[in-house]
């Protein structure tokens, strides 16, 4: 049977009907293709919009909120930090290198389109277990692709995440976050004055049959059904062209030659032109004959929806076009006039003198469908919650458990990954990968941006609301641990098929969790990305709200690291409860993914951050480290390994040791101070109402849990560092 064209393109009958009524006639196939691309889940957010509206987006330091290419935050001195996170999971699942590489290219262009110079990349990743050689192939390819592209364009990759879970085997999660900096008054936002008659200049790579329908097909249909026709939609990245595109774009912005700038991503020219026009409340005329093509014989709808990489669209005043051309030429980039903005809201497309499409720009860009899809918790949800490792009888010795958790690939050192990334190019990396948050200084100031990306898959599966809220809390804590103040987030929401009520419930709960946490921690949402259909058959990935947190430290010379040095007193800030639900211990040692995730008191969380920032700012701390995955035991071990310095501690509380060691109670950090500053820290903590318990001291070559077990830091370090390389060796 041959299904009708609109369905083949991913449009429902109702969507077709509403296109008909907007046009007052049948759409031709070029128009249908344009709508299909623009109204795809990926471009229109039709299933998620209703929920995303509930996110807090206002704040004194927010310069640009959601809705633009990327969000922007005031970081002082009239400078803006621009950042956004995006998913490239679907292409990466079938061509890991190019899929991940083009993911980097896309998010970098989003930041450049705001007029900002990209200064950092982070790459939170999820894969299936490394025992399967396909998962090893995916991990190796994705990491090589992110490095291959990021290293080649000269933007340092300074952080990310790498976690493993079986449900991510068929659908790996590949998110990439890019951060840029620009003078606030020079940001290229739609607020800019764009006039009727302004010229549309397309510059960068030529257009080919790349990812035709890639957005609407690749991102809106699950891998399984029709994997074959989705395949050609994977694109080849050209990082060299991207580097030239970045330099040319920023020179155009610096020289004030632009009224607007748009990257060409999903839905290609159709998206860039209709959004530019709609934002200006205008229409547009474009001439496809002008578009440089990579091969002969492209049909109009192919040119209109092609997702060829490394292209940008500039909105330029007519008298500036020649200057724009000259700049592009200097960087070796073709630049052509493809059209202009016109009065009235119509987007008119011509080729060889005849009009092939005439539709309302606003209907394409802003009037896509919007669904409040049915949602309800999975039946099995309660059974999951009731299977709680906190109450399991544990026969494994604390020492064996320690080694098991330390060598679990979720906890183990990630240097195999980040050594493949240039983390120092541009000369601003004060703190690269390996700590709680990366620090990238803002040139010419003593300020640095603090960046962390975190997602909580297991917690999310057990309680999507808590999972998302914990992700926000942990990323903010990671930032605060360095002494920086968390300011705002971006996010990428990775879920299964939204047409299934369970998935929609997970999504709605996650958004609610992000909203509550961001309100309480005063870190508004500046933007993000939604990736649905991450499932095969009916096995979806774990609901994963990936959070990208941005903070600022006023003087990076006062930044705190997680590394222990000798002769300090060790404190645990925050309180430990018997909370092994959804813990690494539960999965790695007991083989249980179940239970209630730890409770989260956002007021306590915020108090902890205030303490961390204050203590760092007054130079009290020898070290500070987030206490999260793997619990207190792992936080202590990581600080010891990082500093090559041992410790001796007594686990507080009278529960069995494995509770105190591996519970993942929220709002905690492991601090070390010179004894002479101890009372100062205790007073500060008391003042802010943060529980503070002294655990012991640092020093020596050994890790010592009093009366439980001990081992050398060297041995622990080797286990931590070698775990992932050994798994990859198969």
């Amino acid at each position, binding site marked *: 049977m041959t299904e009708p064209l609109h369905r083949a393109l991913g449009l429902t009958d109702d969507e077709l009907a509403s296109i008909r009524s907007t046009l007052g006639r049948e759409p031709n196939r070029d128009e249908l293709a344009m709508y299909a691309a623009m109204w795809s889940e990926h471009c229109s957010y039709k299933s998620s919009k209703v929920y995303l509206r509930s996110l807090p987006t206002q704040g004194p330091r927010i310069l640009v909120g959601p809705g633009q290419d990327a969000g922007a935050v005031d970081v002082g001195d009239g400078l803006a930090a621009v950042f956004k996170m995006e998913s490239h999971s679907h292409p990466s699942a079938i*061509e890991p290198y190019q899929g991940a590489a083009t993911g980097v290219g896309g998010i970098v262009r989003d930041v450049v389109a705001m007029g900002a110079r990209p200064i950092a990349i982070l790459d939170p990743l999820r894969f299936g277990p490394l025992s399967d050689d396909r998962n090893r192939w995916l991990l190796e390819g994705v990491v090589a692709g992110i490095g291959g592209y990021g290293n080649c364009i000269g933007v340092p990759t300074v952080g990310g995440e790498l976690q493993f879970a079986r449900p991510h085997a068929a659908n790996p999660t590949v998110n990439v976050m890019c951060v840029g900096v620009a003078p606030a008054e020079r940001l290229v936002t739609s607020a800019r004055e764009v006039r009727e008659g302004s010229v549309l200049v397309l510059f960068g*790579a030529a257009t080919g049959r*790349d990812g035709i329908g890639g957005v609407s097909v690749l991102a809106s249909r699950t891998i399984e059904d029709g994997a074959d026709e989705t*395949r*050609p939609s*994977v*694109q*080849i990245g050209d990082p060299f*062209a991207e580097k030239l595109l970045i330099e040319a774009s920023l020179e155009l912005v610096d020289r004030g030659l632009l009224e607007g700038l748009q990257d060409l991503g999903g839905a290609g020219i159709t998206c860039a032109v209709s959004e530019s026009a709609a934002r200006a409340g205008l229409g547009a005329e474009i001439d496809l004959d002008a578009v440089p093509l990579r*091969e002969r014989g492209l049909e109009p709808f192919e040119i209109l929806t092609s997702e060829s990489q490394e292209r940008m669209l500039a909105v330029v005043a007519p008298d500036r076009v020649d200057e724009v051309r000259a700049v592009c030429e200097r960087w070796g980039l073709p630049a052509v006039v493809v059209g202009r903005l016109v009065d009235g809201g119509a987007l008119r497309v011509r080729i060889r003198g005849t009009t092939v499409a005439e539709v309302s720009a606003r209907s394409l860009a802003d009037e896509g469908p919007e669904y409040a899809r049915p949602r309800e918790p999975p039946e099995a949800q309660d059974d999951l919650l009731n299977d709680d490792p906190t109450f399991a009888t544990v026969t494994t010795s604390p020492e064996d458990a320690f080694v098991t958790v330390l060598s679990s690939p979720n906890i183990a050192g990630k240097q195999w990954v980040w050594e493949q990334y240039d983390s120092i190019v541009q000369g601003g990396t004060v703190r690269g990968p390996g700590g709680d948050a990366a620090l990238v200084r803002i040139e010419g100031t003593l300020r640095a941006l603090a960046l962390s990306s975190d997602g909580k898959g297991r917690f999310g599966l057990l309680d999507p609301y808590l999972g998302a809220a914990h992700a926000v809390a942990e990323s903010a804590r990671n930032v605060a641990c360095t002494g920086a103040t968390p300011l705002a987030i971006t996010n990428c929401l990775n879920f299964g098929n939204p047409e299934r009520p369970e998935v929609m419930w997970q999504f709605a709960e996650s958004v609610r969790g992000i909203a509550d946490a961001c309100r309480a921690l005063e870190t508004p949402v500046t933007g993000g990305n939604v990736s649905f259909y991450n499932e095969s058959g009916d096995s979806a990935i774990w609901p994963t709200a990936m959070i990208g947190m941005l903070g600022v430290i006023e003087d990076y010379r006062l930044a705190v690291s997680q590394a222990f040095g000798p002769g300090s007193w060790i404190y645990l800030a925050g309180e430990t409860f018997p909370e092994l639900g959804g813990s690494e211990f539960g999965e790695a040692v007991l083989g249980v993914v179940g239970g209630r995730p730890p409770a989260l008191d956002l007021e306590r969380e915020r108090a902890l951050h205030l303490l961390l920032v204050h203590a760092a700012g007054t130079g009290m701390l020898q070290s500070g480290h987030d206490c999260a995955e793997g619990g207190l035991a792992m936080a202590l071990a990581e600080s010891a390994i990082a500093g090559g310095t041992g410790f001796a501690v007594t686990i507080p509380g009278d529960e069995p040791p494995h509770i105190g060691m591996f519970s993942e109670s929220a709002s905690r950090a492991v601090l070390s101070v010179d004894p002479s500053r101890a009372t100062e820290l205790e007073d500060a903590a008391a003042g802010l109402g943060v529980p503070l318990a002294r655990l012991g001291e640092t020093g020596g070559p050994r890790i010592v849990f009093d009366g439980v077990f001990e081992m050398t830091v060297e041995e622990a370090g080797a286990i931590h560092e070698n775990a992932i390389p050994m798994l990859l060796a198969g």
Partner: protein
Amino acid sequence: MRYRAQIVVSLKDGLLDPQGKAVEGSLPALGWTNVSGVRVGRYVQLDLEADGADAAEDQVRRMAERLLSNPVIETFDVVDISERNGA
């Protein structure tokens, strides 16, 4: 018997070939203005033991599909399989 196989792996037609593009772009500066359609691929040569050329070719094809290329973006071509006496 021992065979030597030669396989060429190249990007599918229509896909951007950044390497080819870069080479082509650099030729005019070197005075060669008459060149077009530059494509850069991978060349793999290997020796294998097999009883008969057909068996050899069959295995080479399976290796090329599974390991030497990714059918999502690449095509391969077994350009030659010939018997190697001795070494």
